[in-house]
């Protein structure tokens, strides 16, 4: 049997050693012996750890696939000095394509092109797939059966999200949609 200090040390070390997120259940299964510690104790310890690291240079965050330690976001600019390569900057076209898949998923490439008014380059789709942010989840049952794209858990993890709902909504509330009436009230001013 472990005492609470040992349990905390073990979970802390596990999360430090494993860069991919781990859930409370995974931690219980992988580093604890069967029946040694309750899931509730694991969860309580994780909360304690989150508290311990609140004012430190690294923090314990919960993302879609579990808990992980990461460096504080406000240190990003300084820490970038550690690496030769500059952090990636994505083009407007890539971000718009990603936004369409995030907010309008599942969506076909044709639908993305229709909204953006421009053909989607293959390299953008390839980059998004190679990053593991998007995946094909099926085909749309229309002529040509185009593939439907959606976001992955890795996308949520990489953007520090637990669910898509945490992103701000992009649709203007219904009462502000006055397009039709506004047009009708206008005269041609040319």
């Amino acid at each position: 049997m472990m005492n609470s200090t040992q349990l905390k040390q073990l979970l802390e070390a596990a999360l430090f050693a494993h860069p991919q997120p781990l859930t409370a259940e995974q931690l219980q299964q992988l580093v604890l012996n069967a029946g040694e510690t309750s899931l509730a104790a694991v969860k309580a310890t994780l909360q304690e750890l989150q508290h311990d690291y609140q004012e430190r240079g690294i923090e314990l965050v919960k993302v879609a696939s579990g808990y992980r330690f990461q460096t504080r976001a406000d240190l990003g600019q300084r820490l970038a000095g550690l690496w030769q390569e500059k952090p990636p900057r994505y083009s407007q076209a890539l971000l718009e394509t990603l936004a369409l898949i995030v907010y309008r998923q599942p969506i076909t490439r044709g639908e993305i092109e229709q909204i953006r008014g421009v053909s989607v380059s293959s390299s953008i789709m390839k980059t998004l797939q190679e990053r593991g942010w998007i995946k094909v989840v099926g085909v749309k049952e229309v002529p040509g059966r185009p593939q439907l794209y959606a976001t992955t858990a890795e996308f949520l993890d990489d953007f520090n999200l637990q669910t898509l709902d945490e992103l701000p909504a992009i649709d203007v509330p219904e009462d502000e949609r006055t397009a039709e009436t506004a047009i009708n009230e206008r005269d041609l001013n040319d």
Partner: protein
Amino acid sequence: MAEQQSLPLGFVRGEPVVEKPEDLYIPPDALEVILETFSGPMDLLLYLIRRQKLDIVDIPVLTITRQYVEYVEMMKELKLELAADYLVMAAMLAEIKSRLLLPKAPQEDDEEADPRAELVRRLQEYEAIRRGAEYIDAQPQTGRDSWLSEIHTDAREYVTTPPPEVTLEDITLAFSRVLQTIKLQAHHQIKREQLSTRARMSQVIELLQEKSYISFSKLFTRSEGRAGAVVSFLAILELVKESMIELTQMEPMSDIHIRLKRQHDEFDPA
């Protein structure tokens, strides 16, 4: 609603290009940079609208169409490689313009027939996606704003690969697969037998490795009872039948000796 600051069109030799240059002469490479700055015709259209600090729902279609077409014409004049998508948008704007200039049919329903409605709807959807792209870009991102653990651990040294798991079912399934192959290819018969007989056969062979002869009676022990005796007897019979052992008896009723059959005996010159 409208953006107050001008968005730079692009950068030429480090200098931001905020407005379309007024004079007609623009270095072709500069315009190319400008063109690359837009992510597509919707982006260019949205830029033209925002530049005039206008709400999307208030767009003066005729002005915007003229500006857009001028822009595209200029690019064409400079023989820049212009994506077809820009021309498609120009055609769409031209069509809206022509419909607006046509006299309205008296019974026409104004709301549905307004050719601007579809354009406004598309611009609103595109603007929403632009917002979404901004929200996503503003999110703290792994590898850009924060990094994951790269600390050292000796734990991997303790990792062992467990041997494959095999169940009894795996073995019996494998055996029935083999049986089915036999059925397909062979005619020979194998008589009924006990697995314990098979195991006893192995034991007898093993014993005979150590000693060249064993007394028949040594293979029967009281503790095994009648069933054990039957197993030993069947094992011996089977081994004899498979020519793996031979039995010798000096005289009737004397002890029988068992030894491994040596096939090369007959060729033995000695």
